[in-house]
């Protein structure tokens, strides 16, 4: 299991933005979705998830709204804002560059 601290700094933000870009989601669903999408490789614990969500909300990249969830309880749904969409584009491009660069270095000769 990969702990969030193992993630490159700032990557969690990127993951959250990417996942929330699909549809409005609450915290639990975001964590689940990241796990599924990464073939169970990335598990985001709530200890990192919620502070990150609150920070992104403060930055104005995602918006929160209370809505009934699938099990009929009230849950806080996060939606990507237009600013967040722009940020996602920038961050994703940056990530592409970074990971490509790292694999160039790490790739066995």
């Amino acid at each position, binding site marked *: 299991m990969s702990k969030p601290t193992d993630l490159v700094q700032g990557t969690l933000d990127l993951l959250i933005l990417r996942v929330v870009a699909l549809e409005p989601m*609450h*915290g*639990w669903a975001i*964590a689940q979705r990241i796990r599924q999408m990464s073939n169970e490789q990335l598990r985001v*614990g*709530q*200890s990192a998830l*919620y*502070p*990150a969500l*609150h*920070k992104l*909300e*403060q*930055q*104005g990249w995602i918006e929160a709204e*209370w809505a009934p*969830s699938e099990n009929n*309880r*009230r*849950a*806080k749904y996060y939606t990507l804002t237009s*600013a967040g969409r722009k940020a996602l584009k920038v961050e994703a491009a940056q990530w592409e560059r970074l990971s490509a660069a790292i694999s160039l270095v790490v790739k066995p000769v």
Partner: protein
Amino acid sequence: MRWTRKLRLRVRSLLRSSQVEEELDEELRYHRDHLVEDYVAAGMPPEDARDAALREMGGIEQRKEECRDARGIAFLDSLRKDSTYALRALRKSPGFSFVAILSLALGIGANTTIFTFVNAVLLRPLPYPGSDRLVVLREQPLRSEGTVNVHPVNFVEWRARARAFEALALVQTPPLNVMGSNGAEQIARIQTTSELFRVFGVAPVLGREFTEEETRPGSHNVVILGHGFWHRWFGGDPGVLGRSLAVSDGSLTIIGVAPAGLRIGVMEPDAYTPLPINPANPAEIGSRSFQCYGRLKPGMSLGAVKAEMTVIASALARQYRLDEGMGVFVSGLHEYLVREGRPALRLLMAVVATVLVIACVNLAGLLMARGIARRGEFALRTSLGASRSRLVRQLVIESLVLSMFGGAAGVALAYVTTRALVVLTAGALTAGTTDPIGLDATCLFFTLAVSSVTALAFGLVPAWQASHVEPQMALRERTGGGTADRRQHRMRSMLVVTEIALAVVLLVSAGLLLRTFSSLVRVNLGFQPAGTVTMGLFLGLRPPEARVALINQILERVEVVPGVEAASTIQFLPLTGMNCGSGFWLEGQTAGDAPAGQPTDCSLVSRGYFAVMRIPVLEGRAFDGRDRIDTSRVLMVNESFARRYFPDGRALGRRIRAHSSKEPLAEIIGVVGDVRHNGLTSEPVPTVFQLHAQRPGYITNLVVRTTGDPSTQAAAIRRAIQEVDRTQAVSGVKTMEQYLGDALSRPRLYATLVTCFAVMAVMLAAVGVYGLLAYVVTQRTHEIGIRLALGAARGRVFLDLFGQGARLVIAGLVVGVLVALGLRGVASTLLFGVTAGDPLTYLMAAAVFSAVACAAVTIPARRASLVEPINALRYE
């Protein structure tokens, strides 16, 4: 867009914190429940699933804290906590808080008060549109600092040649005698060319301005009323246009009303009349006796105007004889109006800033001592995990809270002192400004800024020092002796030396200003002001013979008023800042030649003037009834004139022309003593006295010597004048002693204010010395006890501590004297009769401070020598 949302979120976090907290709780609970469900689904018993979920969640409280941090409320939250804590800490030591807030209130209050004046006089722009483009133009003899009024010939040339101005106006301010229901009244009138209102960027509230045609020669009996006068005489009647204003020689048609608050220079005219200029011969209305105001074109800089006017002036100097050696002086109007108050306000601002610095230094010392006393507390907090920055923040917030209280008290103080000063100084501080002086938003902002800067300045260093604790050390030894203590002691000593030095600088300044004032009071004026009353007379446009006859009748009538000893006239009274400069021409020079001597004042008096003013006639005789308009011209000169131009001592009987080279030759019949006409501090100028009865002027001042209290005679004198001519108004009834009082008011004010501030500074510095020494004694009680127990003499202990204090005082004195000597040049323009390096003043300042400091040092030193060894040791 984005930042507004952020702000909203943050404000919500802060204000609706309980709701935000609940939502946070609910969000995390939702997550936990899902986790539990997951584990149950994986086959775990519900109890275990719950435990596992909680384990994985970690400390819920920690998560919440992290979320709060992410929301950025942690900082604000702890700020609130620190403030509450600070208030509690300050309440716990009321003595310290009281002293701290009081000294801050004094320092900040003094600064706010003086800043209120600086703001009103120097900073606030004039209340006209585009007021930064208003300039005043004057003429300036080359190689001279002083400036003179403008010649109409030059005004016409400037208006034709200069491209820098949007509008240019020439004005003169002869009073106007208007006829009211109860006799004649003299009002303030401005005669002006057509563009005056455009210069000031305003328009009449009713009616119109003067046309160009109305400011040409011819009879244009029109008047624009001043706003105040319109209300006073016509009750603000909007139908006033077209009505007439009765004046002593006819009537004027009212064509307009000026806007409220329009001031031409410092004068708020009651009436505006046209100044007729004949472009073909401007000199026919007079010579250098006009003021000139201009409005620059937008974007035109003062430097560019000065350059243009310099070029024009040098062209005019080649063209006109009267412009030889003359240049043009251009200044922003605001700058020009406040020129007299500026140096004093700057000095006072520097003085109050120094007082504030002393107050702050004092507080820094107090806070350091307090920091040591609270070392245990900090050590405890450090060992419980408080970071150093957190402790520093805590302490800085404490000083912020202190300074905010101090600032609030300071504003309250300033509110009172500003009003008091406005009354007490009677305009001496506010020359050039007629706006009301009061605390406004700028002043409050200034106070807030000063308070915050103060808090940081005096709070940061002690806070940094105090926060530097090693837990085990502080918990172990509660009484000093460590290296930190020594460093702290050295620092506090330096602070005290700084305070003393600053206080000494202020004492020296106060001493110099006090000596200046006493020199001014003792200055030999050359005449006796006591027992004389004066009033202005405007003789109107009568023919010369009638003006002579009128003055003769008035003088004869006034001299028989009971209680009047003698009466005479002079065109411009001494000490009023008015004079008539001109040259004189020796016999043999022809018309158009340059004058033989400059500068020379030309004074127009009536017979008996020197007797009334008690000015001694040194040689020859004074003017008397024999000198009439139809007898040969005679002159008198003062001692300076005789000595400068006739050093052979034979001025009597020489024949010269004064005032203009076209005047007839006149014989010098007498030499009188010098008078300080232009003010207490200016040396007498060579002066020629001409006789009103031979060359009558239009404006003059009656000077009456009385036997009783001169001010009670004024009404009777005025009645006597109106018995001679019902239409004759008088203005500005004032005794010569009042003029003297006015001349002394500013130096008196400076001396008084600076002395007050210096006393404050000395007190604060003394408290600083006392505080440090008292602290040392407390720290060393134990040691002193041991020394006494071992047989040390009490006198020895006393001397030891006294010496410690004395060293600080001497160091402070030396530094202070050196700094004061270094700043010698700063205030020299405000001094008179004493040099800025005056040794006596320095000695006195040092002596005064030493005496105060001696008391401050003796008390704790004596307390140390009276320590009872048993008690001192028992406390351990």
